């Protein structure tokens, strides 16, 4: 029979191996894309249109498209998400409606991204006749992002101590004044972190824009929100699976641009959270 100390050592050893299996590939995947893609990155790659059936030139329209879709997602999701978070944190009582809203949010978070794409196709592209457009894509991505923004913003609002609200109330502030001038400013860093994490996820998504916004190839930039657009994630999918004879350098370069865009949003969110957590007085 093995001793307790030995079994502890074996168990901890296995756990450390498991953790390494999980964590090391993260470094590998990022490092690999960076090393392989760095050679493709140049000023022309970032600022030129694709040429020769996308086998040469740059990815500028895909970068612009992803920026536009990310902005559109934020415009759709931030007001509704913030409103929902304020409602849940400041107004909602412990009743059936609140529970139903929470269940709705949990389910919104669980709906597969391709099903959001179907919904966007049915409602925005066809029923509302927006066509395959930046507008339809932004609305689809915005709705998909809502649960992330609502739950992180609610958490930030709830973290503001109740005594802050009581002081405002005792000074004669109405409930809305309390929210607007006391609670929201205190919760702002947490809310911004949540917004960035939400749109970061949207920026990297392909499935929801497949049938609602993305164009295989466009020789020009979109002129209005009713135009189709190229986008980095869809472009990477296209050039890595749909176009034969695609130079591998361009594929790695596109993956690197997408990864850098998404991970720098992630980094900004982490830094904001860390900075304000240190400054917080309560």
């Amino acid at each position: 029979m093995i001793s307790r100390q030995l079994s502890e050592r074996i168990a901890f050893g296995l756990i450390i191996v498991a953790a390494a299996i999980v964590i090391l590939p993260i470094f590998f995947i990022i490092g690999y894309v960076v090393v392989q893609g760095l050679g493709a990155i140049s000023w022309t790659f970032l600022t030129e249109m694709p040429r020769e059936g996308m086998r040469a030139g740059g990815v500028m329209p895909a970068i612009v498209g992803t920026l536009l879709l990310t902005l559109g997602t934020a415009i759709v999701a931030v007001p509704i998400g913030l409103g929902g978070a304020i409602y849940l944190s400041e107004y909602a009582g412990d009743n059936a409606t609140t529970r139903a809203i929470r269940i709705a949010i949990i389910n919104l978070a669980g709906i597969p991204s391709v099903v959001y794409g179907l919904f966007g196709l049915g409602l925005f592209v066809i029923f509302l006749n927006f066509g395959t457009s930046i507008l339809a894509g932004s609305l689809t991505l915005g709705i998909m992002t809502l649960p992330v923004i609502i739950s992180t913003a609610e958490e930030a609002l709830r973290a503001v101590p109740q005594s802050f609200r009581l002081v405002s109330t005792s000074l004669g502030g109405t409930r809305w004044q309390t929210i607007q001038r006391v609670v929201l400013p205190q919760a702002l860093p947490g809310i911004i972190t949540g917004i960035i994490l939400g749109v970061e996820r949207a920026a990297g998504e392909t499935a929801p824009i497949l049938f609602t916004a993305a164009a295989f190839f466009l020789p020009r930039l979109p002129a209005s929100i009713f135009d189709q657009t190229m986008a980095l994630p869809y472009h990477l999918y296209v050039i890595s699976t749909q176009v034969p004879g695609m130079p591998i350098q361009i594929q790695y370069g596109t993956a690197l641009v997408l990864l850098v865009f998404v991970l720098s949003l992630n980094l900004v969110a982490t830094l904001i959270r860390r900075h304000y957590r240190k400054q917080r007085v309560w």
Partner: protein
Amino acid sequence: MGLEVNPVDQEEKPDRPDPTGLDRVGAPMGDDHPDRDSPKQRVSLFEVLMERAIQVTGISTMLLVALIFLFLLWEGVPAFFEVPLSNLAGARWYPIEGLYGLLPLIAGSLLITIGAALLALPLGVATAIFIAEIAPSWGREILKPIVEILAGIPSVVIGFVGILVVAPLFRTGLNIPTGLTAFTGMVLLAWMALPTVVSVVEDVLDTVPKTYRDAGLALGMTRWQTISRILVPAGKSGILTALMLGVGRAIGETMTVMMVTGNAPSIPVSPLDIFASVRTMTATIAAEMGEVAQGSTHYHVLFAVGLTLFVITFVVNLAAASIVFRRTRRAERMLS
């Protein structure tokens, strides 16, 4: 309900009890609120509108879920009238010849999801135990953000690396004709579901009271005995939640799966078929929806596949949520 404009009526929130009763200070014994008559407290129209708008956004989340469900029904249900049930229940998915057998797609999704869950659960629980219980505190500060970064890597990038690195590796390592198999999909999906599993399990381990650990150690148990016989059983419901959320995440994943599983619509029959190509429900929708005519039978069938996915994830998430709600209530009971 919550839209009362007078702050004196602020509702009690269960997670923020007001032990001082300050909320009620100044509340009159009679039926009249004096505050309401003082000019300072008069609420502007802007405020009333703002509060209405906030209430509407709160409710709108429920409406959105209903709207999504309705649209899937609207476009998906006609499939069940246009295609005979015997066809839909068939084993061949070949839309060009009017064969819409859903079995291979459902089997493909289930195979990959179950495989991913079986891989992700032990790895995720072990990583969570490592981060929460074994690693020194500075290690935790580094490891948590790294696992969060994994959640942020776009699925299309993981699929891309899957095609170029993982699939060739499995092909030569396992000596199989192609690396684009169900197994490759399982491994990558499991890895992508890990951030969910790790963060849920870690949260649960955090909520186990410190006294439990102290009690274990005081009885002379080793740290491992404390973890395996006290913490893990105490966090059982959380581990179940993590499993469900991971399954929900895996079954809905689209891009990675479409890129690395080869997409042949065949039903796996023997265990060795995990090294063959499969096609999932999500990949089918993503690959074919762009090419079908709107309103055609094929279009309706793809929406019906989406409807099936919606129902499956709805049930899985609801089950996960009910476990969470039950746990919260028990935690409240234990603390009171």
